[in-house]
């Protein structure tokens, strides 16, 4: 008897579809190739083989520019609010320890992250609008088709588009892939998609070193970099780790619809809620730990004033040599360390260490000369890649049922992060930038 390979159900399915095509071919006649619905019409353009990707990149750029620039005034408002609260505390609370806790720990640590609620919510709003309109499915299709043309197979993009908000549901969405190899590859490349947690870091650094006009573009570049890395990593994994067939690619394109304000805002709120919950728990908790380490030993730091004498400074200086070549200092080292818990904590750490006394956090970064446009860009790339946050790691453990893969993922991402950041710095230095 002949051997049937395990993909036999695919063969049977194919036979069924063939017969269906035959039947439809002889019984259904569409009217001479002209398009009859708005959806078909728009798809002629949005799925056009030349225009598809440029349009996608354009809309993507608009999305990021919107998230950054239009939310700026609101960011300023929130910053002023926290500044005010901070002064209020300093004037009315006498106990220096408590003052430090509230002002530096809570307001500095947590507040500095909450300041980014406007861009995050703006991003979520833009994402919701794009999804509700039906365009997102086209974007996924166009990207997957592009990958197919380059000889890169795999329907990675549909679950990954979810990653724009958070990598955790994207990893879980990989369950929809029947082919185990497809699923594993999708899980392993998901953390390379920029998520909303990284956005505060991008907004902070990009805003500080690139200024309003260019910041949106810098952020767009980082997201694009993420997509490129996803494509390359997927290729790498497929060739080396998971050789094998891919499942046939069927994607359902919903009809287009005019997105309505109510449902877009609702979706925005649903995603935003998760961020706020995370802020109130994980980010808050870690920020307090960072604060604690920054004001102890209490005497040595003269009541939290001399951060350079604190435990956290000691930790930072220990790590500093690793990052010196990139032009980053000890504060950045420590921010990256705590950022492993959740990427937003990178911002929170800066908030604690630099305080909210004068101006904004962004101004402080620039004033202290901590970043140049080149080192800032390399830093953003590093944050994009360097390690999956705790939540993502936990999800990978669950979904792959092993500790081997998450460990591999961590090593892979750290190595890749150093590589890419190094490349950026290297190329930049060659071009004469500092």
């Amino acid at each position, binding site marked *: 008897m002949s051997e049937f390979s395990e993909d036999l159900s695919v063969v049977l399915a194919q036979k069924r579809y063939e017969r269906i095509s035959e039947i439809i071919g002889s019984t259904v006649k569409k009217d001479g190739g*002209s398009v009859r*619905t708005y959806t078909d*019409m*728009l798809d*002629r*353009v949005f799925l056009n083989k030349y225009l598809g990707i*440029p349009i996608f990149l354009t809309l993507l750029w608009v999305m990021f520019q919107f998230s950054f620039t239009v939310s*700026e*005034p609101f960011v300023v408002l929130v910053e002023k609010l926290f500044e005010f609260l901070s002064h209020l505390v300093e004037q009315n609370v006498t106990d220096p320890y408590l003052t430090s806790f509230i002002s530096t720990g809570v307001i500095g640590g947590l507040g500095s992250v909450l300041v980014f609620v406007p861009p995050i919510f703006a991003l979520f709003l833009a994402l919701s609008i794009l999804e509700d309109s039906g365009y997102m499915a086209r974007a996924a299709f166009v990207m997957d088709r592009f990958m197919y043309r380059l000889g890169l197979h795999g329907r990675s993009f549909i679950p990954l588009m979810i990653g724009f908000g958070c990598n955790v549901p994207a990893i879980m969405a990989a369950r929809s892939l029947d082919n185990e190899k497809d699923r594993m590859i999708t899980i392993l490349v998901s953390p390379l998609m920029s998520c909303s947690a990284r956005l505060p870091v991008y907004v902070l650094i990009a805003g500080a070193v690139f200024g309003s006009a260019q910041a949106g*573009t810098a952020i767009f570049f980082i997201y694009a970099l993420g997509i490129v890395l996803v494509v390359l990593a997927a290729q790498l994994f497929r060739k080396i780790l998971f050789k094998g067939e891919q499942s046939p690619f069927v994607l359902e394109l919903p009809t287009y619809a005019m997105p309505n304000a109510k449902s877009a805002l609702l979706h925005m709120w649903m995603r935003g809620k998760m961020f706020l919950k995370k802020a109130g728990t994980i980010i808050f908790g870690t920020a307090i730990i960072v604060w604690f380490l920054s004001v102890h030993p209490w005497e040595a730091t003269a009541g939290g004033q001399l951060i350079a004498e604190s435990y956290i400074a000691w930790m930072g200086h220990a790590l500093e040599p690793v990052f010196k070549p990139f032009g980053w200092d000890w504060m950045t080292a420590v921010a990256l360390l705590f950022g492993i818990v959740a990427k937003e904590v990178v911002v929170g750490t800066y908030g604690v260490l630099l305080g909210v006394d004068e101006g904004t956090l962004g101004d402080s970064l620039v004033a202290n000369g901590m970043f140049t446009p080149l080192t800032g860009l390399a830093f953003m790339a590093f944050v994009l890649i360097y390690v999956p946050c705790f939540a993502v790691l936990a999800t990978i453990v669950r979904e792959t049922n092993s500790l081997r893969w998450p460990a591999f993922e961590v090593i892979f991402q750290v190595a890749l992060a150093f590589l890419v950041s190094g490349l950026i710095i290297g190329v930049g230095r060659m071009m004469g930038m500092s």
Partner: protein
Amino acid sequence: MSDFSIELGKKLGAYALVLGLAHAILGAAVFLGGVEVGTMSFGDLPRVAVLFVIAAVYIMGVGSLGKGRNEGIAFLMAGLLISVAVGGLYLLETGAQYMMYILGETDEFRILESINPATLLLVLALPLLPMMKRVTHGMVW
């Protein structure tokens, strides 16, 4: 063969061609000529690229429009939608800049400089809307 009158199609096609060329010329002026228009200057690659993308969308539809086919309307519609997204973004940006000025974060706000010509081109494209609606009357999503 055609979905609507070829005569109307040729008119729409001409309009689309003009719009497309306007975007392309503007983009070229900024990119090649170093001309500074509004908030765009040479370093602003994405804004220039976006102009070219919109130009491409309009121009690619001219052929179909000239034949009076629905497909041509598709390019017009898409071009308009993208223009709205981009033009809308620039308008919002202007508003945000104004708010920043009020909040005291920036020193000055010059309204004329803040208006991006892409927004103006969007306004020029708006008269197409009623014409498109008439042509695609009765269409479903």
